[in-house]
């Protein structure tokens, strides 16, 4: 276990963390402001990945493909909000969970009909192929480095939007007291649609960046969705800052756990036992973390509502 390997896995953890953040930011705002549990958020991630793959292949241009797929994901997100989710805001969480579960089944099947159930291949854009040398002897895939940079840039942008703009002020106000914001004459429906659309674009962005790294297949959204839930519960529902901290934490714990838990265990117990227990422990590590956080701080690390 060399230092280089640790740094490399740490970067992978950061990369996974920023992708989780892109998903978590939208989801936590939808939770915080509209009080909506949206299981279909993972579907937008999947839609983003498929549309990006299709548009890049169709236009032959990476940039054009990205722009088109983000716009298309925005349209899909806004349509979903207008058609199905609007009626759910006033319902209880159980209704929301079930209705969005239905949406998720629908999207998975729709994608399976259009593209088949097998994973489709998404090439790494040519401009980001190869490696960058971050340090002598430390070569890191350019594409993953770009993902990290884009993720951090979006986080910075969100920070500015939320803390420095009028829209951000409304979002924060909405997260702490929805009724009051409505009573003060803000068009809360429009705000909901804007926030949901924004969340959809971020999920689509995460999806399109995930394409070349992970398998693009129906159901890809659920796997990350549940990890994103872990992120927002740890971070505190409705809090962007919590989402960022939670995402990096979960990304790191998950990635480093998968990489180093088995070798670490094999220094303590027999290699066979380590082979058996290592992967199992690594895959449940984030859930243990979440249970621990909830046990100690049921409201999460950075609760949005005092």
């Amino acid at each position, binding site marked *: 276990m060399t230092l280089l390997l640790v740094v490399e896995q740490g970067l992978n953890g950061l990369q996974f963390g920023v992708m989780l953040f892109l998903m978590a930011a939208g989801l936590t705002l939808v939770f915080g402001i509209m009080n909506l549990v949206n299981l279909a958020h993972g579907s937008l991630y999947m839609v983003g990945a498929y549309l990006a793959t299709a548009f890049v292949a169709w236009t032959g241009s990476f940039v054009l493909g990205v722009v088109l797929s983000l716009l298309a994901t925005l349209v899909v997100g806004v349509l979903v909000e207008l058609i199905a989710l609007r009626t759910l805001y006033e319902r209880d969480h159980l209704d929301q*969970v*079930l*209705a969005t*579960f*239905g949406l998720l089944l629908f999207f998975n099947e*729709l994608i399976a009909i259009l593209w088949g159930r097998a994973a489709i291949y998404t090439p790494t854009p040519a401009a980001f192929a190869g490696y960058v040398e971050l340090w002598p002897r430390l070569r890191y895939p350019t594409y993953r480095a770009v993902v990290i940079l884009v993720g951090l840039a979006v986080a910075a942008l969100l920070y500015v939007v939320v803390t420095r703009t009028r829209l951000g002020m409304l979002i924060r106000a909405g997260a702490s007291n929805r009724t009051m914001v409505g009573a003060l004459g803000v068009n809360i429906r429009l705000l909901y649609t804007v926030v949901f659309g924004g969340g959809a674009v971020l999920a689509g962005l995460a999806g399109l960046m995930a394409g070349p790294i992970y398998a693009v297949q129906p159901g890809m959204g659920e796997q990350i969705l549940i990890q994103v839930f872990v992120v927002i519960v740890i971070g505190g529902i409705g809090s962007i800052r919590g989402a960022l901290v939670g995402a990096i934490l979960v990304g790191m714990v998950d990635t480093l756990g998968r990489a180093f838990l088995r070798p670490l265990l094999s220094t303590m117990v027999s290699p066979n036992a380590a082979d058996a227990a290592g992967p199992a422990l690594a895959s449940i590590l984030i859930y243990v973390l979440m249970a621990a956080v909830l046990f100690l701080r*049921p409201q999460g690390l950075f609760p949005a509502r005092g």
Partner: protein
Amino acid sequence: MRHPSRTIVLALGLLVLVLVPPAAAALNAPFYIDLFRRMMIFAIAALSLDLILGYGGMVSFGHAVYLGIGAYAVGILAFYGVDNGFLQWAVAIAASAVVALVIGAISIRTSGVSFIMITLAFAQMLYYLGISLETYGGDNGMPLRTRSQFAGLIDLRDPYAFYYLVLALLVLFLVLGHRIVNARFGMVIRAAKSNEPRARAIGFSPFRYKLTAFVLAGGACGLAGALLANQTEYLTPDFMHWTRSGEIMFMVILGGMGTLVGPVVGAIVLLGLEDVLSAVTEHWQIILGPFLVGVVLFAKRGLFGLLPGEVARDG
């Protein structure tokens, strides 16, 4: 359940379930015995979820875990040559109840969205644990070596005997459920659902009651898991997948949450619908998904709840 139309539906439903095996034999379609047995097993699972969801107001999104634990208890014991059904099923119930105790003790401290998330997270945890059990088939699961043996009392390899055993257990759980929800204990969890501060103010500590209900539901669902293992003669981590939890939850809502017969109706209708739709198209979920959305938006009381009768006032 006092209203005549509901009693009639219940009686007719039971009669139909009793008549399924002879009818299937007469029509030379043994497949239907299998299908209806499966429906009843899921009905038990849905019924157990309804105790905490419909009556206790706890939106547990990981109820399929107990199906998995019950199934794995049977499968693992059989793997080591222990095929005594009494022991297997007792272990299935006990193991599920213990897991429910741990999950419940942690998650009932939270409420609302956090409760949904944490039960989901625990379910994922156990799902991944199931995947990592390489000895017991890991990802792919493993076949059940032999169906549970009951010392010659009942032979589960006989489809009729197995069918009527499941039916008897379902009726037993309906009766037990009726006793529980109308007993003092049931009143307390219903009170805690409709207004927890008030329940506390009149001197109850809802936590213990809710936890007990959670454990009871887990144990009952564990038995459903033991039955499911015998039904499919195969066990996989997929029993615990969160979409399975969603399906069981949907059965409860579809039939009518907070009623005892509702979950049974829901399980039968949903699995029946899946069977019919999957014969029509491979992509049946594209119909099922919007159907689910429609039920939630427009038929909140569920199919059984649409019948005239008492409305769950604490709903």
